[in-house]
């Protein structure tokens, strides 16, 4: 009897105060449909508490992930704030100066130079790596004896810390006792004195060379995995259709591999924009300012001149650049994936 009565009051109550409807949206429509379906079938209305639970659930589920990001968001926000101040470790106090640091950054030559160094580095390092990586992946994507041996060896350069690899390269490139210069001198005695990173002219070539040596296998491995995951029937169909190998490569393999190339490029471009260890271990940004990229510039500002605010401004600009590039590339990647999935 008592239960019946409570039932009655509840449903009357629900009729009078119509439940707060969630804003229209595809997911909500679905949830609403479920709720009303349940209401109709069980003959009673859904309580407000239940509705609140339904709405709060997504946020509760995502809460752990949010807690994790605190460790990232707090320093990020702090850094952005510092870039808007005149924070310098040599002064006891600092104050908010708005976008002053950025105005100075964009009007001075150092920033544009650093941007140019980073850009050139990305262009040449990643471009060469993509080309070489693609060729290596295609060569290793066959079941020959040599390919089977080389596939596991490919990963070796990735197992060395880039700093150590750079230091080893530095020794090998020494004009006094470097093994590379020795071999070069066999072709032409003058090359014994080839200055490598010692000359502003060849510094960029040198660090790009080391970057290519370390990271080409990364792209080759990704593209090899991509090649192996491609569906076979289209390639068989193209063979039967009489397409030559070059035609198949150009019209089928390349476009179908494009999503994997984009993924490899996203990783490598981001890595190269925030490249620090190779040029720093090589010359600390020199000779002169020839290898002063965004990262080394920021490091020098913050840790040599103790100018935390300007260093932070450099880092924030770098973040914006990486954010925009990765956003564009991920968008492009998603579009291709969708197109390719039949």
């Amino acid at each position: 009897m008592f239960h019946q009565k409570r039932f009655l009051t509840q449903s009357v109550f629900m009729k009078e105060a119509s439940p707060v409807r969630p804003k229209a949206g595809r997911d909500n429509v679905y949830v609403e449909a479920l709720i009303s379906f349940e209401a109709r079938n069980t003959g009673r209305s859904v309580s407000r508490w239940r509705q609140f639970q339904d709405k709060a659930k997504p946020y509760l589920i995502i809460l752990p992930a949010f807690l994790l990001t605190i460790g990232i968001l707090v320093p990020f926000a702090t850094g952005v704030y510092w870039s808007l101040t005149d924070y310098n470790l040599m002064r006891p106090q600092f104050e908010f100066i708005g976008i002053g640091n950025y105005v100075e950054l964009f009007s001075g030559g150092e920033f544009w130079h650093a941007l140019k160094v980073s850009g050139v580095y990305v262009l040449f390092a990643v471009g060469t790596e993509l080309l070489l990586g693609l060729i290596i992946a295609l060569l290793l994507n066959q079941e020959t004896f040599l390919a089977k041996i080389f596939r596991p060896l490919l990963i070796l350069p990735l197992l060395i810390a880039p700093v150590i690899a750079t230091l080893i390269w530095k020794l090998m490139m020494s004009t006094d006792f470097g093994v590379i210069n020795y071999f070069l001198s066999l072709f032409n005695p003058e090359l014994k004195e080839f200055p490598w990173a010692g000359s502003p002219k060849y510094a960029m070539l040198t660090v790009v060379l080391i970057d290519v040596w370390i990271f080409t296998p990364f792209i080759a491995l990704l593209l090899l995995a991509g090649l192996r995951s491609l569906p076979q029937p289209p390639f068989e169909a193209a063979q039967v259709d009489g397409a030559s190998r070059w035609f198949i490569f150009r019209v089928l393999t390349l476009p179908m591999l494009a999503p994997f190339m984009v993924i490899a490029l996203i990783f490598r471009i981001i890595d190269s924009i925030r490249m620090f260890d190779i040029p720093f271990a090589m010359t600390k940004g020199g000779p002169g300012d020839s290898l002063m990229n965004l990262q080394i510039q920021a490091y020098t500002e913050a840790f040599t001149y103790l100018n935390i605010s300007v260093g932070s401004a450099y880092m924030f600009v770098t973040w914006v650049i990486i954010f925009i590039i990765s956003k564009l590339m991920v968008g492009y990647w998603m579009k291709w994936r969708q197109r390719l999935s039949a």
Partner: protein
Amino acid sequence: MPSVRLQQVNKIYRSKRERVHAVRDLNLGITEGEFMCLLGPSGCGKTSSLRMIVGLESISSGEIWIGDRLVNDLSPQERNVAMSFESYALYTHLSVGENITFPLKAKGMPPPERRKRLVEVASMLEISSLLKMTPSSLSSGQMQQVSLARALIREPSVFLLDEPLSHLDVNLRVYTRNRIKRLHTELDTTMIYVTHDQLEAVALADRIAVMNFAELQQVGTREELLDRPANRFVADFIGEPPINFYEVEIQEDLRETTLRETSGAFSLPLPSRWESILDQLEGTVFEIGVRPHDITLHDRGYPQSVQGECEIFEFLGEENHLTLKVGEVRMTLVVSNREFFETGEKVTVYLDPNRIHLFSKDSGACLSSQLGSESASW
């Protein structure tokens, strides 16, 4: 002269652990303009055979001739045959139109001519409205049409189809089946069609090659396969509903010789034409096969009547299937759509003595077919 000829073709897949003999000593001649079906259960070697003809699979031994060319060592590109794939194998990043003209572009045909052929093929398959779309937005039936169009635009002399209908729903399957049949009539190309569905094979093919366990069982027209199956497998695989098999023993008494079903469910007088076979094969265990369509409810003067009890009655619309329990064994027959039965109902049925098949239980060979073909040749 056969347009496609397979001589003693073998396919052996080798891996570290095992060795699979996928096709064994296949001999098959397909004449020009013929519609040949390779029919068999999964894993019988029919797709391997097709892939060897098209060149996607190497030939372990034997010879394959297309026209007067030995194609064993030719690449798929050089064999000049068209193929429609089970999975359609469309190029997902190209538009439908680009997909269809792909073979022409690969051969370097100039764009105006490509466009002309595209318009022709598209209107033939009624897909003109789809040309600008991407494959991912098509239904599976449309993908199938596009895959057919891509094969047809080459105007091939040999056209191979690998289970083209297996992913379509029933209505579309019948529709596409008719379309393929019509295309074959219009274009007069040699078609080799792989399927595991005997209905498709029977509906489409001029001749059917039945395969099982890597071996060719029988090649023939649908009538030959139905009336004179080479062995128990062919008799069982072709025909819907499947044929009824009964182990029989021969009983001789003074008046007549009868075939008695082993459990004693029924006996039939021995057809006189079989006497000669039975004399030669003393000691063999025999089986008879009776097709559900060859059993009737009506006495047409057949001497053999069998009493049974209705066990399962399937109402299917155009015709109904009735399964009787006769003693220990079951007997399925086809009745007209006007006749209904209830479980447990007593039914008397009659067997057409001229349409009973006799098999050797051990070898599986169909003894009555051998006799039939011999008597036909006399």
